[in-house]
């Protein structure tokens, strides 16, 4: 999962022109989004007449959906000198690609959201590895729940069930083992050797965005 946070206004203001079209993603279940702060900022831009138009919608990372949402605003978009996008990095890139000839600015910073206990407002985290292992790991993601993203089991660094990297973080493989044990399917731990394919995440992402 991703977490987005608003950039400093002082950082954004010098970038955008007097006529800026604002696109605001309401977020999705994958992204923690500071919706209220974003709405507040975009209201300010409207009031100060910096924004010439605003669209608030979800899933701006889906180009077809976005196109539909923008249809009736296209005049304003064409008029605008810059586009300001409130969303995760994926949403911003979607829009930048769609309006390749326009200046598109991100209003947010996007951070990966590690699944460390006590830090995350959301419970699950996906590292977009493209080779989902959840079927063999009791639904706990080894890529994000293990500090070394190990896919073949626990390292030797676990102490008292905690990870060697962070004494406040439960060892992901300890959690996976206990979950499988509870489900009486420890044989899943004997899955044949996994060798990660680091092109898979990218490939999966590509196949989701290109259609032939």
């Amino acid at each position, binding site marked *: 999962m991703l977490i987005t946070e608003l950039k400093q206004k002082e950082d954004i203001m010098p970038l955008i022109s007097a006529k800026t079209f604002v696109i605001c993603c309401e977020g999705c279940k994958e992204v923690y989004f500071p919706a209220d702060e974003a709405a507040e900022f975009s209201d300010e831009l409207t009031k100060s007449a910096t924004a010439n138009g605003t669209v608030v919608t979800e899933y701006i990372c889906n180009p077809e959906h976005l196109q539909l949402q923008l249809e009736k605003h296209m005049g304003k978009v064409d008029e605008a000198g810059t586009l300001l996008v409130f969303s995760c990095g994926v949403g911003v890139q979607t829009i930048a690609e769609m309006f390749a000839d326009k200046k598109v600015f991100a209003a947010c910073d996007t951070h990966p959201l590690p699944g460390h206990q006590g830090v995350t407002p959301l419970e699950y985290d996906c590292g977009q590895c493209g080779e989902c292992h959840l079927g063999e790991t009791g639904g706990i993601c080894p890529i994000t729940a293990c500090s070394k993203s190990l896919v*073949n089991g*626990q390292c030797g*660094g676990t102490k008292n069930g905690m990870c*060697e990297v962070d004494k406040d973080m439960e060892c992901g493989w*300890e959690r996976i083992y206990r979950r499988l*044990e509870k489900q009486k399917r*420890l044989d899943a731990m*004997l899955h044949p050797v996994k*060798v990660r394919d680091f092109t898979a995440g990218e490939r999966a992402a590509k196949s989701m965005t290109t259609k032939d």
Partner: protein
Amino acid sequence: MRITELFDRGEFVITAEIGPPKGFHIDELLHEADEYLQDVTAINVTDCQSSVMRLGSLATCKALKDKGFNSIFQMTCRDRNRIALQSDLLSAAYFGIDNLLLLTGDHTVMGDTPQAKPVFDLDSVSLIHAVKQLENGVDLGGNELVGEPPKFAKGAVVSPCSDSVDVQLAKMERKVKAGAQYFQTQAVFESEKFITFMEKAKQFGVPVMLGVIIPKGAAMANFMNNNIAGISVPPEMIEELKADKEKAKAGITGVEITARIIKECREYCQGVHIMALGWESKVPDVLRQAGIVN
């Protein structure tokens, strides 16, 4: 020589660990090996142990080999991707270094350069698999090697006194399936735990070397209890180290404890691995008191 041949012959194999220096002058290391490690079967050289940058394991193994020692090349997955790991395996084969110990490795944040990128392209299991593939004449990319493939003794580690021993056993089984031929354990201070572990581990049919650390005193024991995964020094042993401070400082107590653990566990395992951590000079005493050498 591959140490698997010795296990096959039923020999009790003795290895000692040595850590290369932070620098490239290894005269002292070679001198210590000459002086104190003549009775060990092979010297096991760590790979930037605890994520502390040091001279490489492979270069040190080669230097030891040139001195007539049998060495074990430790490899972790922390600093190299699969291309570099496989390349270094071929380099080892070229130097005639044919004993390996294959580990995942500590995380980079544990060491003296926490800013470094942790690699973990492979892990211990997939690294064992990679070695096996090379032995079959192909690399992980599925490409054929030129000429005769290398042949190694493939070692791995396991933590018998871990508080997650069942999770460790599951991983051990996975390593055996991937091709691990012998195991070296994390340091054992609780013989009964090791014996219980061996009862379960013997089903895998691979030789296991008992890992031991010579305790230098109560403070070190407490430190390990609090900070080192898979190690717990029982309170009686800490008392024993406290009882006579001078004796502990001189290493006499540590040697006694270590020799005792080896004696208690010997019939349950196929070898012993001594992690002297700077006390290489005590290794001969340990082996003598444990009744392994005269």
